[in-house]
């Protein structure tokens, strides 16, 4: 018997594409960074500390629960980092860290790991946790820190007391003077630390499209529906697109692979649904922001959408096929 090292035996194919799960998640993290930069400039170190804490809580909870459940560690795929970041982006920059920890626990342990981990969650973990926090700690979750760069006109129109300030959507709900589109794009407004600069999020979204991490179907149909419904309702579509969580939702949260449909047609239906429910809640319901609820609802409808659309594009795709 010779003592040479043995050759590897494995099934074909023997080449793989360079993209793997971790590299996809790395690209999402990169796309989220411009917004983090803007937030830190506006809200100060507390924005950065909250984001890093959420990341730390998420990764730690994931590591602990995987050990408790006797499963392999999955923190290397970076999905917990993204969950932490997106949850932090949905929070006021001044939220107490222990509340953020509760949110991370909800997202990682309850919505994700208990259902089987990556690929098995029934709804987006960060988005669902944000809703849980909104309902559990509503006072703290509506305590928006002042944006030092907010324009004077907005500050006086909103009757600011110098400590907290309303979000653009709260102003919309109360029929007050709204910030202009430029303010929304450049982050001169109040709000969750990850939703205030539509431009920063748009840059991230374009990066994700370029890297083929996401397809254009969901962002276009989500944002497009918001625009169309705004026009039909007689309100400013640009405001509705740039204010609140539409940008973050359309490019980052709604596009989560596990909780969105697989087929092109399914993605478009899903995006339209997200946009539709967002606008209905914003205009007719008591919550100023409709994106989280819309996304949660469409996440739950995703398996049904898949079932309805996969027949048309899956195995029965070719002419002469058996179905």
């Amino acid at each position, binding site marked *: 018997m010779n003592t040479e*090292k*043995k*050759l*590897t*035996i*494995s*099934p*074909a*194919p*023997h*080449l*793989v*594409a360079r*993209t*793997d*799960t971790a*590299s*996809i998640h790395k690209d999402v993290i990169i796309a989220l960074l411009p917004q983090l930069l803007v937030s830190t400039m506006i809200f100060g170190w507390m924005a950065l500390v909250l984001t890093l804490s959420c990341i730390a809580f998420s990764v730690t909870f994931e590591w602990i629960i995987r050990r408790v459940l006797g499963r392999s560690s*999955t923190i290397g*795929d970076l999905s917990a980092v993204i969950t932490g970041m997106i949850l932090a982006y949905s929070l006021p920059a001044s939220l107490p860290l222990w509340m953020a920890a509760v949110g991370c626990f909800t997202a990682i342990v309850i919505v994700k790991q208990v259902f089987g*981990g*990556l*690929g*098995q969650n029934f709804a987006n973990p960060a988005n669902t946790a944000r809703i849980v926090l909104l309902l559990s700690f509503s006072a703290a979750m509506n305590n928006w820190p002042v944006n030092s760069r907010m324009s004077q006109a907005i500050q006086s129109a909103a009757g600011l007391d110098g400590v907290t300030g309303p979000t653009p959507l709260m102003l919309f709900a109360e029929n007050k003077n709204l910030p202009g589109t430029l303010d929304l794009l450049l982050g001169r407004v109040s709000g969750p630390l990850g939703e205030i600069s539509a431009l920063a999020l748009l840059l991230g979204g374009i990066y994700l499209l370029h890297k083929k991490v996401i*397809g*254009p*179907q969901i962002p276009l149909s989500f944002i497009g529906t918001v625009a169309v419904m705004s026009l039909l309702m007689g309100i400013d579509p640009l405001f509705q697109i740039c204010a609140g969580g539409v940008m973050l939702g359309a490019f980052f949260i709604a596009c989560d*692979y*596990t909780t969105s449909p*697989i*087929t*092109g*047609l399914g993605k*478009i239906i899903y995006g339209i649904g997200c946009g539709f429910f967002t606008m209905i809640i914003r205009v007719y319901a008591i919550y100023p922001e409709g994106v989280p609820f819309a996304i949660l609802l469409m996440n739950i409808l995703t398996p049904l959408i898949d079932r309805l659309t*996969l027949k048309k*594009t*899956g*195995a*029965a*795709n*070719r*002419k*002469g*096929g*058996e179905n």
Partner: protein
Amino acid sequence: MDLFKTESGIKLNKYKRTVGMAVVPVSLPERVYIPLPSDGEYSCRPLVTQGDQVKMGTLIADSDNIRLAPVHSSVSGRVEAIENRPAADGSECLHIVIRTDGRQDHEEGLELPKAEDRDSLLKAARASGVTEDGEECISIAESLNFPEGSADTLIVNACETEPYLTSEHMTILAHAGEIAAGCRTLMSCLGIGKTIIALEENKKDAAQLLKSCTSEDSISIALLPSSYPHGTARGLCREAAGKELPQGASPIDAGIVLIGVSALLKLQQYLETGMPLITRSFTVEGNAITKAMNIEAPIGTEIPEILSFCGGIKKGMSLGKLILGGPLTGKTLPGVDLAIGKGFSGLICFDEKYSITGRETACINCGRCISVCPEGLMPMRIAKAWEHKRFGILKELDIFRCTGCGCCSYICPARKPLSFEIAQAKASPEMKEGGVQ
């Protein structure tokens, strides 16, 4: 950009560094170890014994099962032994060991075969020893032996979409005239009305050359996109002839006969010279080999000889994986001490780093496998159904449409062995009654 369906297949053209290298014959080895294939219970029995003198083209093994192609000596020399040696799939089979005398005399008794009509062509096809692609060594006469009059189209598969492989491209450039003659022979003997030679658009020089050799209307060239894969039976029927095969059907059900371009060439050369199949052309590639090149070697040449002819393994690297065939559909070899047989087109040498394709992680439902599948299947659904042994679901997922191209496994970010799991599902006894492919 189509929002509803993304383009299927994957683009892998950049791995063709041996393009333009003509096929080089290897230096004659000292010994050849010619493997005798077997087909389940039937195998090729040796017709020579130790000590016999043989020449190039001498018939040295044959089988009662006419599906198996006969085996001829690829060198002139003396039969040293007939022994069991390791075969490519890890088992053992009989090999005829011949010590070459360096003279390379041709067998004198070879008659020029007659191919005037169907029966004589089929006899000649079997006697030529030419096989269909694949290691089972099924004679080409099997695929030409269709019910008389039931075929109207001959498709010549001149595609070579796998990365690294270029030997067929070079072969077409060197022998276009004989390929055209082969088409005419088959058409006239088997009563087939038209021929389509299918190749990809990145082989325009070969297409031009073939066009100039085939002035008649009954032979046309079909240029296919150069993404992978395009040389599968189902793919060719669909793209070259426009016929979609239902699940489980073979090309002849749609009146199509498929033949590979190397097999056609070797058959025509046999008809013109009387010399049966005794050499194989293929590409030696991979990041661990010093000189990537296209070579032609006598059947039975040992792999270490081939590797050293190509400069051996690069300094500082060690061989991690040896693949017989292309990098996307080829089989890994268990060791280096094997001899080459028939029906493959590449020998790929990867070092240890390239050999590991990554740890399998959870499916994230990204849908890349679905968008990339050339047959429109849902690989992750099939793999999940197979893992949970849900045969009811598997039966609805058209798994016998799968051609084993490997696109799904290639693109999967979670490194799931999707095409392997689909192959396992197809081979399982519970699914076997479902379809024939």
